[in-house]
């Protein structure tokens, strides 16, 4: 063992942190090395200061358990409050969902090409049109006009480019 290795072990030796074998090797080195012995002697005062405080009794303080217990109970109650099942919210949510589904289904059915209300969705009223914005073809409108009760309105829509002069 050289002095560099020994000095690292000295710092552990002063705190009794070496194995028996390490201690024996170090002590045999220290027996022949005055420089390392003086290094070890330098450690005595600081280590004595540390160890003097080791066994000092802690300052008396009141138990923290009442406060800890209170906090734990608060957390538990909060946990139970937030996890409670709210039937009213669930019922309102289900009703809203059903209403939304029914509305969507009805809307899709009315938008189907064979539907009688299709023309109302496909053809905007005259007041909603803007000049040059929409140019319906005769063929597409005629395909809807066969079963439509509003054939006069559809016919007007066919002639709409002329009717647009009203604007």
């Amino acid at each position, binding site marked *: 063992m050289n002095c560099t290795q020994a000095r*690292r*072990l000295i*710092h*552990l*030796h*002063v*705190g*009794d*942190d*070496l194995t028996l074998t390490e*201690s024996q090797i170090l*002590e045999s080195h*220290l027996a022949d090395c005055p420089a390392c012995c003086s290094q*070890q002697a*330098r*450690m*005595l*005062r*600081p*280590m*004595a*200061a*540390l*160890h*003097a*405080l*080791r066994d*000092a009794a*802690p*300052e008396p*303080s009141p*138990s*923290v*358990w*009442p*406060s*800890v*217990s*209170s*906090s*734990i*109970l608060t*957390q*538990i*109650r909060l946990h*139970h409050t937030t996890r409670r099942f709210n039937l009213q919210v669930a019922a309102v949510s289900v009703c809203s969902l059903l209403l939304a589904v029914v509305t969507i289904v009805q809307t899709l059915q009315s938008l189907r090409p064979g539907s009688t209300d299709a023309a109302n969705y496909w053809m905007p009223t005259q007041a909603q049109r803007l000049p040059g914005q929409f140019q319906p073809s005769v063929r597409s409108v005629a395909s809807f006009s066969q079963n439509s009760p509003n054939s006069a309105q559809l016919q007007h829509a066919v002639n709409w480019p002329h009717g647009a002069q009203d604007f």
Partner: protein
Amino acid sequence: MIRMSDPDSLNLHSPAQDAAPADNSSSEARLVHLARQGDHDAFGQLVLRYERRVVKVIQRFIADRETVSDLTQESFLRAFQRLQQFDPARRFGPWLFKLAVNLTCDHLRRQQRRGRWSLFSSRPEEWLTDSASAAASRRDEITVQVQRVLLELPEAYRTVLILRDLEGFCTADVAAITDRTEATIRWRLAEARKMFRDAWERQERRDHHSDPNSRPAIPPELPSAGAT
């Protein structure tokens, strides 16, 4: 036994009041097992068993009593919240001290960040107590000097030194508390003691130059068995 599943039946009494005389046969593992199942009183017994030691460890880092008390409570609260993460195959003590030391180091880091921009910073004299006895005042002197020197060490080394040399934890426990290997702790411990010695000697030289009579009386003997 009070279960957490029924919070309305809980009250705030000390578990020691119910179980006084304390059931010495109840092992720590059993208490931890019960606490993990939600037994409020079992956790209370663990708190009562460890609180003095936790307070003592935190006091090594922080002087202010209120802060020490707050951090102690926070440590136990966090332990309770994380009981399900605790590995029952391991010991409860090091796990609890790990939480406490981590919280304390986090607090010190936050304080340090704030301290850079504050007008006043804490001094080691805060460790002084009000005791008037000669022995206490001599110990206070050493305490102040040791704390002053400890503050000069980097946090990782200071923590190891405090846990091993001031609190007397074995190297394996220090490794468990700091979440490092035992070899790392041994290396850090050797370095920390060397740093402490150097800082201690610098401090002594400074004190000696300013006032030759200001040197605290330190017991000359080394309590460790390793001393020659």
